[in-house]
């Protein structure tokens, strides 16, 4: 076997994986999006941009798009701030640091569906431990306790917080790596130059971490924008579509509602948005790297 052949053989599993699990479904989705495919129907006609025109006019699509943006922006803002603080706290050695790091990483390691089911119980309208504690502390009367997943604003906040709980560990690990790449003389020099904590943080540490923060942000946006597990398990998009995001709407329309074509069109709508985000973030990372 020549080197060339060996190379091709070694390379083949990766190519096959991408073609079968990513390429094929993607092409299929594109094809469906321009057709009138439905579950239970054998008819298949290309209808051009009809599906896109129809979803753009649909109020639930607009609502889902808006929710997706709110969900992503809020979740990422919280994740970046929290993971920056956590990475600072975990940077210096202290007793049991290894254990704390492990505990913090757990939400990311645990299967997302399991974690979310746990949260569903924590936020349940009857059995919620949070509500129980709040009542016990006399913040609420038993009959007027908040319905975490039942009121539109609270439901959105719950979905965002659970998603943050899941993403913060991942982001923290990336940030820790980024921080440890800054030579320790740099913050020391800043402290001797007279900079206090905030100046060092905002003028030295964060600018030097820009490339790594953009990577964490890019991954975070992609994970958040495309996530449907948290939404689907916690609220299934409700109440009144108030937590419906694009992926969950695509699933509800295409699979549960049998309209494959519309579902495909909704999910395709994510592609240009994510490509634009990726391009923009990589540019920021690149620019920060070459300064």
């Amino acid at each position, binding site marked *: 076997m020549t080197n060339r052949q060996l190379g091709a053989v070694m390379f083949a599993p990766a190519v096959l994986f991408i073609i079968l699990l990513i390429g094929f479904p993607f092409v299929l989705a594109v094809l469906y999006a321009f057709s009138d495919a439905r579950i239970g129907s054998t008819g298949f006609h290309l209808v051009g941009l009809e599906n896109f025109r129809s979803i753009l006019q649909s109020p639930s699509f607009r609502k889902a798009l808006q929710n997706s943006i709110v969900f992503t922006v809020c979740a990422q803002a919280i994740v970046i701030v929290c993971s920056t603080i956590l990475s600072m706290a975990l940077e210096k050695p202290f007793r049991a640091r290894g254990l704390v790091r492990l505990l913090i990483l757990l939400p990311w390691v645990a299967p997302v569906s399991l974690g979310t089911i746990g949260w569903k119980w924590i936020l349940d309208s009857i059995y919620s431990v949070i509500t129980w504690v709040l009542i016990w502390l006399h913040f609420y009367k038993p009959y007027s306790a908040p319905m975490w997943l039942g009121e539109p604003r609270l439901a959105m906040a719950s979905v965002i917080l659970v998603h943050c709980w899941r993403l913060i560990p991942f982001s923290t690990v990336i940030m820790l790596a980024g921080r440890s790449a800054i*030579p320790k*003389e*740099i913050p*020391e*020099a*800043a*402290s*001797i*130059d*007279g*900079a*206090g904590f905030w*100046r060092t943080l905002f*003028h*030295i540490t964060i*600018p*030097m971490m*820009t490339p790594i923060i953009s990577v964490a942000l890019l991954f975070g946006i992609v994970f958040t924008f495309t996530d449907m597990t948290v939404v689907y398990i916690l609220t299934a998009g409700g109440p009144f579509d108030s937590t419906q995001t694009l992926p969950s709407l695509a699933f509800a329309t295409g699979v549960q509602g049998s309209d494959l074509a519309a579902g495909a069109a909704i999910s395709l709508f994510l592609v240009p948005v994510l490509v634009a985000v990726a391009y923009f973030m990589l540019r920021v990372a690149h620019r*920060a790297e070459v*300064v």
Partner: protein
Amino acid sequence: MAVVETRNLTKVFKEGELGAVNKVSLATREGEFLVFLGPSGSGKTTLLRMIAGLETPTSGEILIGGQVVNHLTPRERRIAMVFQSYALYPHLSVYNNIAFPLKAQKVPREQHRTKVEWAAGLLGIGKLLGRKPRELSGGERQRVALARAIVREPAVFLLDEPLSNLDAKLRASAREELEQFHKSVGTTTIYVTHDQVEAMAMGDRIVVLHQGVVRQIGTPKDVYEDPADTFVATFLGSPPMNLVEFSDVIVGFRPESFLPADLLPGAKHVRFRYKVNYVEYLGAERVLYGAIEGSHFESKEIISRLSWTMPAGYDAGSVHDFAVAESDLRFFDRKTEKRADPRPYPWQ
């Protein structure tokens, strides 16, 4: 300007272990260039970092300008430090690097440009202000680091091996510039190095450190000619001082004082038969590695350093009469390894 003083300063990193710095007491003089010299692990950098406020002492006091500063943060100590790696802020331009201390100390904005230009002018980097650190050479980075240090006119300069990242040629010129620079600003400076040539050339006084303990403080001449113990005697000088042991005494003499006997007429001296084993030709001088023949010191290895002006003929394998003037002998106690008084010695 200010005087830096340490009193019984100690730093123990791990409880139960030997301290990195042990009971160091020293004081600079006003406007002095004081060098901390020692091999790696001698505690010189830790000592400097404690003075800077980057390490907390385990015990002891640090005084700057007569005031105890143990509890003060680095920025309250009015010091400036140049790091071995220079620690320039990579995302800021040279101008903003130099201006950073001014901004951090809330110097009025309209003064920034004048001060930055003054500092940059002093170090000849006025044309580099728009560049980023990665676009600079090693020597230029070092100057930016110095400019950043002087721009707010600190009371004390702390320099941590600032020349060790430069190549040999640049280091020599940077050394000279640094000396000129110190003369022109006259600020009290503490300079850490493991390079004895740098220490001898630049220091008004040298603090020789070993295993966290001060072995000697003195002018370059003092520490070279009158070492306080055998460590200082062998650490300073290249090749190091020859040491020969006999009963309870160690006798030392510099390789350049161990010369052909006929070059030492008149003066009282001690003679040896010396067999040359190996010769290093270094241009301006020759270094002879050999051993003594006969006497108590049979086959004791001794190094001699001859200037290029001396006659040739000291080749490997040849045997000669060599001698050292009695005034060039240094005596050390064998037990404590500290300096001892000269005494009559049974040489043969």
